[in-house]
């Protein structure tokens, strides 16, 4: 039982999600969109129209937050931070890895493979999936993941330093500074996106949407 829990807690999917601020905050916002309206609807002290109005408003607010977040973070803050690091702040600092990657996306794909243990990486280079996987659904997932990783390796180029590091080294360099730069960008993007942009945008959108669904009318009654 305990090894199963430990394996679950260290599974690549969860670890990658926990290390990615943008994806994590998106999931959290999605959960708020479910949890908050659900608890408003469960409130027995409120009358039915108020419940409907408040829960719809909260749901809309969280969905707008999610939309704003997904629109702003990957495109503006992640790309922006990597470009700023590559062409500005870390331009003349060899060894940090900034010159080895085209963009933040390519770096994150490389890092995903570098985070795997040596045996799992060897399987990618040999184009094989884990033989211990017997479940058909899991086999398909593993095959898809393998194809994704093979594409990343192709993009890196067979003669590149990164390709060889992933192939031969026990602990390939992860260029943590780049990861930290992307996370810093995501963090400030999250603050600006969710605390300033989302309330301002939702302020303009919520009332017309509520009116369109006839919910503002209910409140006025």
């Amino acid at each position: 039982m305990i090894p199963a829990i430990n394996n679950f807690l260290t599974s690549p999917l969860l670890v990658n999600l926990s290390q990615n601020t943008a994806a994590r905050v998106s999931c959290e916002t999605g959960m708020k969109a479910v949890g908050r309206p659900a608890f408003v609807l469960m409130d027995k002290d409120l009358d039915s129209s108020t419940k409907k109005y408040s829960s719809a408003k909260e749901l809309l607010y969280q969905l707008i937050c999610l939309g704003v977040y997904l629109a702003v973070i990957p495109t503006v803050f992640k790309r922006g931070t990597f470009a700023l690091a590559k062409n500005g702040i870390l331009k003349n600092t060899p060894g940090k890895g900034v010159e080895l990657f085209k963009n933040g996306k390519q770096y994150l794909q490389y890092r995903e493979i570098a985070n795997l243990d040596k045996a799992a990486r060897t399987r990618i280079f040999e184009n094989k999936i884990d033989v211990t996987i017997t479940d058909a659904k899991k086999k398909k997932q593993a095959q898809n993941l393998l194809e994704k990783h093979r594409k990343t390796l192709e993009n890196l180029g067979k003669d590149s330093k990164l390709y060889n590091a992933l192939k031969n080294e026990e602990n390939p360099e992860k260029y943590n500074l780049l990861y930290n730069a992307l996370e810093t960008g995501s963090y400030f993007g999250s603050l600006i996106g969710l605390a300033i942009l989302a309330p301002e945008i939702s302020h303009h959108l919520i009332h017309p949407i509520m009116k369109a669904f006839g919910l503002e009318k209910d409140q006025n009654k």
Partner: protein
Amino acid sequence: MNIVSVTEKIFTWFGEKITPAFVSASIAGAKGIFRPIFTLSDKKQDKDSRSYAALREGLTEGIAIPVYLMSGQIATAIAKKKAKPDGMSDEQFKKIIFKKEPYDVKKLAGTKFEHATTQDMINLRNNFFKMKGTLSMLGVFASALVIIPALCSLTIKPIMRLAKNASQTSKKENQVATVAPKKQIFKGNPLNNVYSSYSYGMKVGGV
């Protein structure tokens, strides 16, 4: 210290030190300030609704901050328990996971782990941080989905009632103050009031 090293330090701090729980708590803090401000500036709603909604939003985010921070602490405690191998002391485990450089395996001589390699120490450390991150994230998700909305439902009503009562009392006091009888204005001889007794009349000592 040049701009590169300062930037590196900032990036390292944000990338390595902050946990999912801290990120969510700080977003809640920022939302707790800005969301009520935007609500209060919404001219489409009446003043009472605006202040009610703003107070409710501020309170929700206020409740969220300690819940997120606590979920992070609980995650760290569970990760320590789960990642620590059986038979290893807490002190030794802390030294392995919190030191930046790999733990010197020679120090494990004479213990159950004397055959462990440096790679095992790196794996142990990595596993701890992976578990800590995952648990912290799961704690944040559980907080967002159930704990915070449930706590809000339980606590917001009594607080809102208190706030409403307080505002009604202050309104009543203001009304009472406006209809209260005017203070009697002294219309008698000004020389008879207290001040004048010092200012006028016979002065002993001639001061």
